[in-house]
């Protein structure tokens, strides 16, 4: 197999980053705390890329992304808690099942509600997220292993940086290949103008559902990894405020840009932790205030997002280089 030039640079960059993190681990610069933050950032990257497909590229406004993240977390976590024992095979099987369950639920809910448009779709998905949260809080009545409103613990903590990093690399490649395939083009055309896309012969419902299912499955995958890295799952970690987190990562990164989503996801997770360290014990109450101000100021300064419609070269397949000019994926008007 001939590795194309950009894919080569992509892997070279990944190896370099991996080596850097390893060096920091061995030199002791990367404390377990910051390692946890880094892992969290990668998990959020995977989940946010899912929403990037749904909203950034296909233009379907979802305010319920965290519900699918939670579905994946609870499914994978509970399966591995009951059947696992730290066995790697079960770990991967539980991750896949978590993603599959999130994807399946997305298919069932997506088929009817993706007919709704913009804000109405947003509020319907938000409502769905709240229903899922009520389900999580009461899930222990059917399956005591889920823990209900008091949260669930006991999932084998087998996910570590190496594994999460490799999974993130695979997901980025997967999303890249999807976005730059005919499927991805169809999705982008729906974002730009659904009626025009329909007229051009694109089965809009099919592609909207496809993007929704794929994006939600990625959220489920991210959730599954989260369950194996953080020993305690609680319904409050997956409510609509978490959905807002995913949304603002995708929007601040710039709609229609994987690069933007990845950079913002990492930056956002680190920002929250850096604020915690910088403010110290005396000013920790100000963390939320400063965070909110940063959010408002950055969206006013750059309403189109950090990387709106632009990608790093190494995230674009070689044969599509001619598309990297100006006419390529300009950000949508956001529903």
């Amino acid at each position, binding site marked *: 197999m001939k590795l194309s030039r950009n894919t080569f640079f992509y892997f070279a960059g990944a190896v370099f980053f991996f080596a850097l993190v390893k060096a920091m681990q061995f030199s002791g610069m990367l404390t377990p705390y910051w390692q946890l933050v880094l892992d969290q950032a990668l998990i959020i990257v995977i989940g946010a890329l899912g929403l990037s497909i749904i909203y950034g590229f296909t233009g379907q*406004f979802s305010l319920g992304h965290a519900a699918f993240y939670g579905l994946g977390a609870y499914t994978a976590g509970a399966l591995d808690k009951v059947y696992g024992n730290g066995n790697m095979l079960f770990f991967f099987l539980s991750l896949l099942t978590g993603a599959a369950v999130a994807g399946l639920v997305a298919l069932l809910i997506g088929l*009817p*509600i993706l*007919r*709704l*448009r*913009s*804000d*109405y779709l*947003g*509020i*319907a998905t*938000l*409502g*769905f997220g*709240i*229903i899922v*949260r*009520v*389900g999580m*809080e*009461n899930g222990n009545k059917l399956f005591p292993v889920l823990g209900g409103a008091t949260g669930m613990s006991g999932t084998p903590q087998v996910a570590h940086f190496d594994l999460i990093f490799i999974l993130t690399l695979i997901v980025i490649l997967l999303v890249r290949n999807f976005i730059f395939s005919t499927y991805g083009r169809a999705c982008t055309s729906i974002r730009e103008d659904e*009626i*025009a896309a329909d007229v051009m012969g694109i089965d809009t419902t099919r592609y909207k559902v496809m993007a929704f299912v794929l994006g939600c499955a990625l959220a489920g995958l991210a959730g599954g990894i989260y369950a194996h890295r953080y020993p305690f799952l609680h319904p409050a970690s997956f409510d*609509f405020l978490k959905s*807002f987190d995913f*949304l*603002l990562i995708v*929007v*601040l990164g710039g*709609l229609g840009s994987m690069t933007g989503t990845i950079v913002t996801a990492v930056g956002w997770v680190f920002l929250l932790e850096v604020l915690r360290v910088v403010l110290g014990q005396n000013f920790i*109450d*100000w*963390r*939320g*205030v400063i*965070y*909110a*101000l940063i*959010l*408002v100021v950055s*969206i*006013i300064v750059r*309403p*189109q997002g950090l990387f709106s419609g632009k990608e790093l070269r190494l995230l674009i397949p070689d044969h599509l280089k001619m598309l990297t000019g100006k006419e390529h994926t300009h*950000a*949508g*008007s*956001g*529903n």
Partner: protein
Amino acid sequence: MEHFLEQVLNGLQLGLMYALIALGYTMVYGVVQLINFAHGDVFMVGAFLGYFGFAVWGLPLPVAILTAMVACALLGVIIERVAYRPLRYAPKIAALISAIGVSLFLEYFSSLKFVFGPNYRVVPRPFPEVHWNIAGLSVSNIQVIVFVVVLFMLILLQILIYRTKTGMAMRTVAVDHNAARLMGVNVDTTISITFAIGSAFAALGGVLYAIAYPQIHPFMGIMPGLKAFTAAVLGGIGIIPGAVLGALIMGQVETLTSAYISSQMRDAIAFAILILVLLFRPTGLLGRTETEKV
């Protein structure tokens, strides 16, 4: 049967309070097509100011309510001026993110110790609660006050929107900003007025809420805000009677579910109904089906 009717009355009280909040959502959505996520937090600020007014500063209740309403109207105008106006002609999602930011700001800023503080506060009743027995039904004076006040405000709003120049300007801006400007309407002022009225209504809702369910904290606005917004969507967002209808339905659904099914299922059933209604009427109960222009 009496139990059922009492639950309906409780639902009516809750629904009327949701209506006060939902009106702000729907009016703002009407003029700027923005889901103002900070609206629930303006409601929270209103509840706190009302509490400080009558319980801490010792103002008479009507004065405390008016103070809260005026202060929140001002807050609403400032929020619009600072956080939404610069984004008015940017992609809609930018203003929505800004609204989420403002909402978080209000919540966390209110939690600071020198503002409202992070703790729950118990609100003392400004007047003793009295229960009357009317035809076998127990009716409290709080329910009567909520009913009368909200009804009065709804009539006032109806007159404002359909019988005054300002109301006409608001209706014009809701249709088209540019056309309104060509007709000599000051769009910026009209939008500010809309935010002011909506926020004042939310503040009134907040004070009434604090009197009826006497416990307040800086994050109390999230759920009622969300429910009221859902009510506005249920009725057809941007349509004022729709907001009231949606709010009354939400109030009944919530109260009856708590009473007869399970209080934990309350939110799930309310939102399931929303999704079902949207599936059959994608623009809400009273919403107009818009013809898609190519």
